[in-house]
C-alpha cells in the first residue's frame, strides 16, 4: 500500500474539458470516494490513475514515484470494473491467479495466494467454477479477489456496486469497507450514489463538470457544503431563491424577510439561494416560539415514505419548501390544504450566491 497523489490533473478532448485541474492526495490506507453526477469527470480521473487514459497535463504519483507515463500493466493498481470484466473463459481460480502469473510467481505460491484471497471474499470452494455459473454478487467478489490477489499499491473501484440489487448492495458496501480497513488498502472509489459514498468513505470528493467542488468528511459536506451544487448533491436540500439584504438578512423572491446565519456578507443585491435541510425544519399547527424563523404556509403535497413524511409547504406565491418529519406514533401529520407553521433556526440554513 502506498500514498496516491494526483497533481493538477487535466484531461481535454478537443475543446471539451473532461477533467480540469484536479489535485488530490489519498493517504496510505485511506478510502477516498469520488462522488458526482454522470459526466462530472470522476471516472476519467480514476482511469487516468489506472493508466487507461493519458492525462493532457498533470501528474499521478504512487508511493512517491511518478507513474504518469507508465502503462497500466506496470502500475500495480488493482481495479474492479463496473461490469466486473471477469475473464469468461477462465475459472474463478484462474481469474484470481492471472495477475500473479503475470508477476511470474511460482505455482505453489500462486495456488496458496488464490486460496487465501478467495477465502477473504468468502468464496472458498468456488475456484473451479466459471464466472457465468456465479450470481452477480459472487462475480463481484471474484472481481475484488482478482484485484486484491496482486497486493496492489492502490485499489481502484469503478462503480463496483451499481450492478447489484439494492439489498445486496447494502451488504457488499459494509463487506468491502471492512475488508479495506482490515487490510489497510489505499482505495479510490467512483460512484454517483451518495448513500454508497457516505457509508464507505473516509473522505469524499464531490465533482461536477470536471472540477472538484469540495473535499471533506461526510460531516463537512453535510454541515458545511461549499456551494449550492454540493448542498443539493450531498443529502437533501430545499432552496428559497432571493437576495441578501444585509448580513444575516435574506429576502426571498416572494418578499419574505428571513433571518439567516451571520457571516454571509451581502453580495451587492445579486441573486442568491437559501439552502435548508428538510429534516432540520419544524412544522406545527400553531406558531412556534424560540426559532429564528417561523412562517405560516399552506400544505400542497404530502408524500408518505414510511419512516419519514415529506410535506411540501407554500410560504408565498414564489416560495415553497419541503419539510421532512419523522413518522412518530401520535405525531403531527398535516393534510393537504391545511395551514401550518414552518420554523427553523438560522443555523439550519446556508446562503449561496447563484
Amino acid at each position, binding site marked *: 500500500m502506498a500514498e496516491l497523489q494526483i497533481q493538477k490533473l487535466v484531461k481535454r478532448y478537443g475543446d471539451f474539458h473532461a477533467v480540469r485541474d484536479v489535485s488530490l492526495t489519498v493517504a496510505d490506507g485511506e478510502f477516498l470516494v469520488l462522488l458526482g453526477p454522470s459526466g462530472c469527470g470522476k471516472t476519467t480521473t480514476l482511469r487516468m490513475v*489506472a*493508466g*487507461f487514459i493519458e492525462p493532457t497535463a498533470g501528474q499521478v504519483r504512487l508511493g512517491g514515484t511518478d507513474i504518469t507515463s507508465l*502503462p*497500466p*500493466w*506496470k*502500475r*500495480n*493498481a*488493482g*481495479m474492479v*470494473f*463496473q*461490469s466486473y*470484466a*471477469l*475473464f*469468461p*473463459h477462465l475459472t474463478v481460480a484462474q481469474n484470481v491467479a*492471472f*495477475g500473479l502469473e*503475470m*508477476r511470474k510467481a511460482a505455482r505453489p505460491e500462486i495456488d496458496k495466494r488464490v486460496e487465501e484471497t478467495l477465502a477473504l471474499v468468502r468464496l472458498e470452494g468456488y475456484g473451479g467454477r466459471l464466472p457465468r455459473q456465479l450470481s452477480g454478487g459472487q462475480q463481484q467478489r471474484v472481481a475484488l479477489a*482478482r*484485484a486484491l490477489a*496482486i497486493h496492489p499499491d492502490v485499489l*481502484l473501484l469503478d462503480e463496483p456496486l451499481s450492478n447489484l440489487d439494492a439489498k445486496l448492495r447494502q451488504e457488499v458496501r459494509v463487506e468491502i469497507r471492512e475488508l479495506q480497513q482490515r487490510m489497510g488498502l489505499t482505495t479510490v472509489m467512483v460512484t454517483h450514489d451518495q448513500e454508497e459514498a457516505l457509508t464507505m468513505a473516509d473522505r469524499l470528493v464531490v465533482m461536477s463538470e470536471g472540477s472538484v467542488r469540495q473535499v471533506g468528511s461526510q460531516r463537512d459536506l453535510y454541515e458545511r457544503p461549499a456551494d449550492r451544487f454540493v448542498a443539493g448533491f450531498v443529502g437533501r436540500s430545499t432552496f428559497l431563491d432571493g437576495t441578501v439584504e444585509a448580513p444575516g438578512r435574506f429576502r426571498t423572491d416572494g418578499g419574505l424577510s428571513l433571518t439567516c446565519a451571520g457571516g454571509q456578507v451581502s453580495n451587492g443585491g445579486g441573486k442568491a439561494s437559501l439552502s435548508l435541510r428538510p429534516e432540520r425544519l419544524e412544522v406545527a399547527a400553531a406558531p412556534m416560539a424560540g426559532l429564528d424563523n417561523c412562517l405560516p404556509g399552506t400544505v400542497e403535497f404530502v408524500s408518505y415514505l414510511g419512516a419519514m413524511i415529506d410535506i411540501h409547504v407554500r410560504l408565498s406565491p414564489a416560495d415553497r419548501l419541503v419539510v421532512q418529519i419523522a413518522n412518530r406514533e401520535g405525531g403531527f401529520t398535516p393534510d393537504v390544504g391545511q395551514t401550518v407553521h414552518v420554523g427553523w433556526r438560522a443555523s439550519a440554513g446556508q446562503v449561496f450566491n447563484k
Partner: protein
Amino acid sequence: MSLVVDKPKGRGLTASALLAPATIFIVISLFAPLGILFRYSLNDFVPQTKTMVEALTTVQYVKFFTDPYYVSALLTTVKVALISSISCLILGFPLAYVLARMQSRFKPLLIIAIVLPLFVGNSVRAAGWMVVFGNKGFVNASLMGLGLIHQSIEIMFTEKAVIIGIIAVDLPFMVLSLQSVIEGIDRAVEEAAFSLGAPPATMFRRVLWPLALPGILGGMILTFILAMNAYATPFLLGGPTFKMMAPVIYNEFTQKTNWPFGAAVAFILMAVTLSLTLVANLLIQRRSTR
C-alpha cells in the same frame, strides 16, 4: 441459457408451417442434385462416344487418385486455400479489431466499405487484376517507367496472383466474422488484463485470442471453403497451366462432357473440404477447452 416457456397449443404446428418452405427448398435444390450427382459419379464413361453408361463402379474415383495431374490439382487447391485463409486472418484481425472497437458515427460507412468489393462480381474483379498485374500491366509499367526494374515481374498466371486474388475476395468475410465476435467482448476485459500486469501481447494471447476464437474459427472455415471452391479467380488469374479443383470440375462437365468423372471430382472436393474443416474444428476446440 435455460428458458422454460409454456407452449401454447398449435405453436408447434405454426413453427413447422414456417419452417417448411425453406426445408423443401433446400431438399429440392441441394440434396436432390447431390444425390443424383453422387449416383452419376458411380457410372462408367465411354470416351469414344462421349456417353455415360449406367454402372456401379469406383473407376472414376480410382482414376482421380492415380492420375498425378488431378492429385496435384487437389494439393494445389488445399495449399492455396490454406495460405489464403491464414493470410485473411492475419490481415483481417487488426482491421476487424479497430472496426469493432470504433465508436465513430462513420462506422456503418466503414463496414459498407469493407463489403463494397463484394458488389463487384468475381470475374469482373479478376479481369481488373489482369489489367493491373499483366506483363505490360499497370504495376509492371509503373515500376519499369520509374526505372526500378528492367524486366517485367511475372505476377499474372502464377500461384501468387491466384492467392492475392482469393484473399481480396475472402477478406471481407473474415473481417465481418471477426468483427461481430470481437464486438461482443467487453473492452473492460482487456483493461482488466492490463491492470493485472499483462502487456498487450500477453493480453492478446491469454484473453483476446481465446475469446475471439469462435469468430476466428468461423472466419477461417468460411474463407477456407470459399477458397477451396473458387472458380473465376484461379481460372482467370491462374492461366491455362494452373489447376485448381473448381475449374477442373467445370472442364470435365462442359469441355469433355465426362459427367461421371466430373461428379466424382466434385464429391472428392466436397469431402476433402468437409473433413479438413471438421478436423480443424475439433483440434481448435480441444485446445481451447484444455
